[in-house]
């Protein structure tokens, strides 16, 4: 072979050596393409240490309602408030009760919507089921297992409670579904209302047994949280005796008390307090809230829009605040003057409502007409200014920069309360009044609320009916803007009345310097509610389409 051929052959060899290193035998060829993804964890490692399992649980806590990020809070679905802008669900769907199985939607927030979406809740429930199943089967420490599983059983019951209130009886699924191994049994039919109730309360009772009285880390479920939820579910189902007992159990735990400052309770400085039972925590800029710039007064100093004005309290709500002498405004002896409506009202009014002439974020807010105020009541549905002449104050923090920074970055840090001790007292009072009548314990519970609000005690000797009325008014005022009112109207059976009429705002005009106050009907205040079917929401058509065992709620 001459040298040139030798060179060529050597070159050939080189190429084939190179190629054969790339392509060797088939199996190793296959293996040579293996890559382990860098951003995921396998089943094995998740459930072998408590710290990794906790990371999974963290995500379930994240599924709880993100109440400080709603621009159309759920109170807008009730008679407490109207949204200041018209493209939201409370205006397009709830107002006229136009939800159908195909159109039912639950958005209303920056990141998440209301906690009543069918399939989202089942996603959360699945995560709970996975956690419970996997942790139970793991070899993790028994103490860890007991406490964490109890937490997750509580969380799962919470999600079921949301489904149950919205849709009635729902399929109860307690294990992770698996299409390959479970066959057709993944298609669950709906359980009845009673079965679902039974499941939730039983689970909560069991969870309460294992949960600590004080959680090692705030924000986690506790015994008090489980019992409070149980007492609420019992109340919702009109199980008054059971509810009274459960709520009394929470009272008797002796760890909760009312925070002295009602307005301050909802501010970040008081996040740690003795009243909060179960709540969502926020960290500004990281996982912060935006409610301040979504739901408060629209225009502030200089006419700049620092909030969307998402919550405009109705005249109906405002009228339910007592005078500071503890009397209702309809009481002729209360001293209420319809032409000076904001004088001498009870403290919670001033802590909850922004009204014409009150102060907010370095500015006096004028909702009156004719002075060119940007916040003038917006009866022509022209902009985001109030529809009713009022704005929300409670729970909103005007001590941070309002406006775009809060919208974009979530700069507020106050808690959003799912349950606080005032709930327990009011739940107890109502349940006990219904089960037994207005006994001393009922007075005691309601009066604690009133005393914190610097109001005189209820008049002794009220009838059961009168007490019921008093409790309901107290409840509406105390829990305003906390997402409770809609469900109260449903369970009291008065949604067909309260949500099926025209809601009002206040038109304020000035004649020769004298202000004149006139209730007016407002855009978005024309409410419709068909009590024959709207008590429950329709099950989404997509869910019905995918599971022939599901039956639709009546009327849809």
């Amino acid at each position, binding site marked *: 072979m001459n040298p040139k051929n030798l060179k060529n052959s050597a070159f050939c060899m080189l190429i084939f050596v190179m190629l054969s290193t*790339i392509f060797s035998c088939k199996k190793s060829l*296959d293996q040579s393409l293996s890559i382990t993804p860098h*951003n995921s964890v396998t089943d094995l490692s998740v459930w072998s240490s408590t710290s990794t399992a906790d990371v999974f649980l963290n995500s379930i806590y994240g599924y709880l309602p993100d109440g400080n990020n709603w621009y159309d809070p759920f109170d807008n679905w009730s008679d407490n408030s109207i949204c200041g802008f018209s493209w939201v669900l409370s205006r397009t769907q709830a107002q006229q009760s136009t939800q159908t199985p195909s159109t039912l939607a639950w958005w209303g927030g920056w990141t998440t919507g209301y906690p009543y979406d069918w399939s989202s809740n089942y996603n959360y429930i699945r995560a709970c089921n996975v956690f419970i199943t996997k942790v139970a089967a793991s070899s993790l420490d028994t103490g860890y297992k007991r406490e964490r599983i109890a937490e997750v059983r509580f969380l799962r019951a919470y999600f079921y409670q949301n489904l149950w209130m919205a849709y009635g009886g729902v399929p109860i699924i307690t294990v992770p579904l698996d299409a390959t191994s479970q066959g057709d049994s993944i298609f669950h039919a709906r359980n009845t209302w009673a079965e679902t109730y039974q499941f939730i309360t039983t689970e909560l009772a069991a969870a309460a047994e294992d949960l600590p009285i004080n959680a090692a880390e705030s924000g986690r479920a506790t015994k008090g949280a489980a019992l409070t939820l149980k007492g609420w579910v019992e109340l919702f189902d009109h199980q008054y005796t059971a509810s009274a007992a459960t709520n009394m159990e929470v009272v008797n735990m002796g760890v909760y008390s009312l925070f002295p400052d009602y307005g301050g309770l909802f501010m970040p400085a008081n996040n740690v307090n003795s009243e909060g039972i179960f709540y969502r925590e926020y960290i500004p800029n990281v996982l912060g809230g935006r409610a301040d710039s979504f739901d408060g007064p629209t225009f502030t100093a200089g006419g*700049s829009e620092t909030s969307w004005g998402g919550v405009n309290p109705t005249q109906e709500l405002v009228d339910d605040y007592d005078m500071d002498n503890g009397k209702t405004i309809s009481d002729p002896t209360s001293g209420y003057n319809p032409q000076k409506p904001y004088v001498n009202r009870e403290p919670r009014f001033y802590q909850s409502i922004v009204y014409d002439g009150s102060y907010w974020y370095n500015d006096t807010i004028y909702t009156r007409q004719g002075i060119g105020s940007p916040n003038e009541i917006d009866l*022509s549905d022209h902009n985001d200014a109030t529809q009713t002449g009022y704005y929300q104050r409670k729970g909103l923090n005007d001590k941070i920069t309002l406006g775009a920074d809060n919208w974009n970055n979530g700069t507020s840090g106050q808690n959003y309360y799912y349950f606080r001790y005032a709930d327990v007292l009011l739940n107890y009072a109502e349940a006990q009044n219904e089960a037994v009548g207005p006994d001393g314990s009922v007075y005691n519970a309601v009066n604690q609320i009133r005393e914190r609000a610097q109001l005189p005690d209820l008049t002794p000797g009220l009838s059961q009916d009168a007490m019921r009325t008093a409790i309901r008014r107290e409840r509406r005022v105390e829990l305003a803007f906390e997402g409770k009112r809609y469900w109260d109207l449903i369970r009291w059976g008065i949604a067909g009345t309260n949500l099926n009429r025209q809601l009002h705002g206040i038109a304020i005009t000035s004649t020769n310097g004298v202000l004149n106050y006139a209730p007016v009907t407002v855009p978005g205040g024309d409410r419709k509610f068909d009590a024959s079917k709207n008590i429950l929401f329709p099950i989404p058509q997509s869910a019905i*389409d995918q*599971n022939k065992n599901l039956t639709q709620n009546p009327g849809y």
Partner: protein
Amino acid sequence: MKKVIKTNFKKRPNTHGLFYKGIFYKNLVVIFLLLSFHTSFSQSNKEINGVVLGEDGSPIVGCSVMLKGSSKGVTSDSQGKFRIEVSNAKSVLQVSYVGYQIQELAVGQRTELTVTLKKENSTLSDVVVVGYGTQKKSSLTSAISTIKGQDMASQPVADLSNSLGGRATGIIFTQGSGEPGYDGSNILIRGIGTTGNTQPLVIVDGIPRNFTQLDPNTVASVTILKDAAAVAPYGLGGANGVILITTKKGKIGTPTLTYNSYVGWQNPTVQTKFVNAYQYATLFNAADDNLGAPHAYSDYALQKYKDHSAPDLYPDHNVLKELENTNTLLTSHNLDLSGGTEKIKYFAGLGFLSQDGLWGPTNYKRYNLTSNVEADATKTTKVNISINGRVEDRHFPGVSAGSIFYQAFRTPPNAPLTFSNGLPGSYIGRSAAGNISESGYTQTTGYTLLNQISIEQQLPFIKGLSVKALASYDYNPFNATNPTDPTAPIISFSRTWLTPIYFYAYDSATNTYPQVGNDGPAKPQYSEEYLQSQAFTYQGYINYHNSFGKSDLTALIVLEARNTKTSIFGAGRVNYNIGVPELNNGSANSTDISNYGYSLETKQKSAVYRLAYSYNGKYFVEASGRYDGNYYFAPGHRFGFFPAFSAGWRLSEEKFIKDNASWITNLKIRGSVGQSGALAGSAFQYLSSYNVFGNASVLNYTSTQGLMESSQANPNITWERAKKKDIGLDADLWDGLLTAEFDYFYEKRTDMLFAPTVTVPSEYGIGLSQVNSGEMSNHGFEVTLGTSHKFSNDLQAGLNVNYTFASNKLLQVFETAATYGNPNRRITGRPLNTQFGYKALGYYTSADFDANGNLLPGEPVQPWGTVHPGDIKYSDVSGPNGKPDGQITPDDIVPIGHPSTPEIIYGISPSISYKGFDLTLLFQGAGNRDFYEGVYAFDNSSSATIDALDYWTPNNLKATYPRITTQPTTNNTQVSSWWIRNGSYFRLKTGQLAYTIPTSVMRNLHMHSVRIYLSGQNILTWSHIKNFDPEVSSSTGQYYPQQKVITVGLSANF
């Protein structure tokens, strides 16, 4: 070394000396260093005088005449004459000129020479770039279209993807934005064949790479591989078609220096018009009337809007127009050097492009450097080294273009956009003017470096056998979320500095303009992101080509391995107290600091083959394919085989045609069938796992990490399969007077990935991993017709027409009973993305209502609140039992429009040249596409376009828009046929009028040629949509519009 350069340029005029010193020594000396291993030249002793003529006898100017085997060469002058010294009678001259075949002449004893060059444009001898090689066009059996580099270079566009449309068949495209740096077209080869990723594979010089930001002047050709036979060598990457880009290489000849430059002025193709303040206020009052609400604007206010007497209290702004600049600049400069000898050829290019945006802070700059050296290291060894690098700088305001347009569209004319002193105002707490000028910036820099080296070795012991090894290392950052996106903007490093957007109010009492608030963050924030991706590709080729009598055999085997590694890292801080955007200057508070990072990896191994046999230049058969393996899938499911077969028959070579129809220069029928694949979904779907994410919840006032179940694994998941068939006809009649190509194609895609959501209840709680179950077909045809005629030496004219039609159909998809069970709503059997909605009948009139305003009995009930005259009325098409049920429900939904992707794309390009002038036009159109218009007056407190004035009133029953309301009603904004707009269009896409300065003039300047031109892009548009560009990519119209560009340019050859 210096001597060589001097030798090469010593004949240059002194006037240009400075120029050469500046540009050459500094920038291109590198190229000459690469050439330094071949620098010999011989002594001369004999002078040859010659002339170079074309076939028609006219002189060819600027033609390169080289002494073969040396670097010595001269160029022909304005009369085609040249003078060169040769050493002896054995010397051989090589004469070459762009567009002509190279000629070699032995000098012999002659001292006078006449060289006649033959044109290269005989299409039959053209060599076409195909997968992993080249083929003679006459022996092609597959469906391939080509675009010449010069067609791309002559268009004033920044992004190459915008140069393809209308140029060749098979390219369906939509340009969705005009934003510098992001204005590329979405290109689909033969339309859409899948519900998954539709992007074609893009190959630049043999390696998968992004092509859109290459310097157009350095592109030699673009080849579109369309049918099974053409794409088979790309296996898993081929199903959506393949775009092959070949960059320019040097040619034998004296060094040629080319300078190209243009400057252009850009404006939106359509400037969307809005109502003015008076119209806005009147319109709003009319809406209040319909609501029964008090007027929002008093007569006094209306008067003020009309007479503009108090502009700060009662402003009247033309928002978009005031925000946008007009005649923004687009400039490009490019300098190429090319040349070569027998042993070494080189091409080097330097490019610069700058494109300004609609507003100051937006611009794009690109710097390209290309160098390509091909050398014969030995007589049988060829080495090719190419380096192609670029730097891209994109600069934008801190607020995205989408947000700027969103805010511009919603800011009504009577909002204080800016005050009379120039300060920005705000609307709903957002400042449209401040968004642009005060929001900070986002600046991204992309670095791309494409390196490759190949060594080809002939193996003389078997004739026709050669081997080649190629290795490439690319530093080629990509879009991490869509690695196959050929138009993904290249980002290596981005910096984002967001500042408070302060806005102001007018206080009429004090006549001052206090700052009243801010949009954007309360304090500045800054973040950086690094993206880095490396791609390693190794290819080993075994090539065999030989002829045996009338038989011709080609065999090719390529083994390829490719892997990529990507790392992404980002960090940021908020709440800056120091206004200098560096990470270190940010807040030290731990909750103000964030960072993230992750990495990705891919691997692929493949074997490619092609066997081609032809007999007598008449009959052709070819088999090609790829055995392809990919890391996406489970062990045992990683390798697939994708074969294709094709055949061709050149009838024109048959006696019965040659004898009877001599006007048929070429006639070939060809057909192909084969399989290719496509990666779909995402990697690792075969694994069951948990995904890690940050900021899951807050516990104990500390943010926590979370773990989430990913969707349930599917261990059997695999690629999409495409079965493609194509039949084509190529004809060349009357010696090139008419050329025609026709193709019919059919593709069936199977194993498309679908999430089988409908097979589990919605209570299941987690997504199932996708399964390979979808099926879809796509068919269509393509026609190309071309003619060109030379009427005289001075006058030549040509016309090319191409037409592509591609229509797809979903054959099997997961569909819910609700849509599948209703023949009107069934997606299966219809084109992908068919638009569905209610069928609008028109407006309600007062005749539809009783005296109380209630709908008359018998009128179907519409469930979206109370309706009034002037609201849109929908057809009760069907009901739960398939019959009209008196209610408008989803059962009444029907198909209402075509998808937005056009089914038809065509191009018509006439050209004419007379003496030094030439005019080339490209008309381009699209058909069978619909635009869904969701532009509603006052939607979420937005402004209103000028069209909104044509709203329904009892006196304007035929209005375009329904009765005006302060917020569009749920009833009127239902998805319905009312809002479907015909999206077909016809455009003068490109036009160029050029003048080549006569050579007699140029000779005195010692230049070969100079061409000056006036050129444009998107020059004229005819469309049914008047207030937007027809390619409008957002149903609300809130997007960065396509641009019209008018340029003047210069191209000079030295």
